[in-house]
């Protein structure tokens, strides 16, 4: 199961501008894989390959092989919608929909055909509990999702992603705009979620990668420079560039 997510020679071009170069990478099931690297090195781009969000950008060309659980993502017959359902995503800035908290969570299940109020109620509670938000909002499910604080909004977005029971959760700097307490809550949450989900996260915060992840990949200019168990990478980086980057680190 060590190659639950498997990337082979992935190249990606925005127009003529190559953003990913021969990326090879594996991620194991029920582990947390972190992507680190300076801004613009292609972390988000790669993450977005994993649920084919890049399809939405015009003039993107992708070559190579990406598979999850043995199934090729870019196969001719891939059902993109089901794929995205199974590979949830949380973004840097919290982006709850302009609807009530309840509707935000029920949104996904409804799209996939769940109509019964009872089941929806159940899903909403379960997802909010999983995202450790239930206790804070259980009395105000009718309130707009936008009325929550930043940290709460981000947990709402995580709950929303969990509502359709994905296998994989992609997180693109999901704590970048949050305060330490919210960040900590979300880090704890991620650790818990690991039991049920395979998680790939992008982070700017090397401490976060060190604290949370099982495996870390260091990117530079669209290339994977080094990819190793987190401990190894932070303590004994093989590549000079990795070392340079992580020693330029904070506190």
């Amino acid at each position, binding site marked *: 199961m060590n190659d639950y997510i498997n990337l082979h020679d992935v190249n990606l071009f925005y127009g003529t501008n190559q953003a990913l170069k021969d990326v090879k990478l594996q991620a194991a099931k029920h582990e947390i894989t972190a992507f680190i690297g300076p801004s613009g090195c292609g972390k988000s781009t790669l993450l977005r390959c994993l649920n084919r969000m890049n399809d939405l950008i015009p003039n993107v060309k992708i070559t190579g092989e990406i598979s999850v659980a043995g199934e090729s993502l870019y196969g001719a017959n891939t059902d993109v919608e089901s794929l995205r359902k199974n590979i949830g995503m949380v973004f840097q800035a919290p982006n709850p929909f*302009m609807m009530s908290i309840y509707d935000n969570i029920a949104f996904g299940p409804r799209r996939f055909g769940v109509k019964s109020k009872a089941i929806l109620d159940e899903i909403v509670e379960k997802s909010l509990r999983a995202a450790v938000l239930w206790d804070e909002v259980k009395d105000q499910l009718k309130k707009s999702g936008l009325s929550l604080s930043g940290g709460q909004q981000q947990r709402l977005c995580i709950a929303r992603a969990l509502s359709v029971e994905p296998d994989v959760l992609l997180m693109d700097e999901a704590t970048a705009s949050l305060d330490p307490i919210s960040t900590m809550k979300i880090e704890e949450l991620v650790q818990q979620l690991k039991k049920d989900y395979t998680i790939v996260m992008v982070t700017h915060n090397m401490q976060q990668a060190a604290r949370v992840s099982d495996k870390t990949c260091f990117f530079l200019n669209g290339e994977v420079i080094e990819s190793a168990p987190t401990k190894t990478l932070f303590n004994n980086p093989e590549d000079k560039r990795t070392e340079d980057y992580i020693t330029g680190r904070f506190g």
Partner: protein
Amino acid sequence: MQQTNSTASKMSGRHWRLMFSDQVFKWFCLFSAIVLCVVLFSIVFFMGKTGVLTFEFVKVTEYFFSLNWNPGFDETATYGAGIFFIGTILLTLLTLIISVPISVGIAVFLAEIAPTRLKETVRPILDLLVGIPSVIYGFLGLTILVPFVAKVFGTQLGDGLLAAALVLSLMVLPTIGRISDDSIEAVPQKYREAAYAMGCTKLQTIFFVVLPAARRGIVSAIILGMTRALGETMAVVMVIGNVPQLAESLVQPTSVLTSNIVMQIMAVPFESTWNYALFFMGFSLLVVALLLIVFVRIINNRSEVQ
């Protein structure tokens, strides 16, 4: 380098000057907004003042509820404007039914679906439609649409609500389409991403996420389109048939408030009941439009998530 470097935040001449122009500008803006209201109210007053004289000669109930519009200068004259009210409402509804799906559809197409190149070509072309004089719309309607409608429906004449609604729909297409387009475009990408990332299809994303988020702008576009349709005159008179009768079908000549006003207001003597009645029709048209706007706004606010 000439720079002041004192923390002192004292009043200087320059400061007063800036404050002054700031205030003047604010008052200018307020003044402008008031000018708009004054223009509207003077129009309402101008129409209303002359219009109410109608009721020295005509019963209010007759005016609003009678369908018999038979004005003239003798005792037999009747001033039932009911037909025009019904016609106006029908025409507006019909226009909205035709134009809103198409215009919003075009807006969705432009903002969400069309490739950039196509967008950039189609938008100016749509803008161009606004500039086509209503006379041309009317004339094309008269020479092409009306005979076509007659042929399709197997009637002798093609004039009527349908032809008028089609012409109006074309006229409001750019207004509704482009303003909706802009507001759909303004919906932050993050909402779309969130929806796609949940496995939504494009259709679901557009309907459940993008359009609700753009609703404010779309409603505003529809109101503007609707009011333009309500107030449009030159093209409507050419294709509606101008007969003060209750339309039994969409292809029977009939008349609406605006077309009746245009046809007759320059053709009747001043200081006649007929003239007053026409002014009152203009007045009522405005009131109806204002009520409709308020109504749409209330509905829209009520359904918005608080």
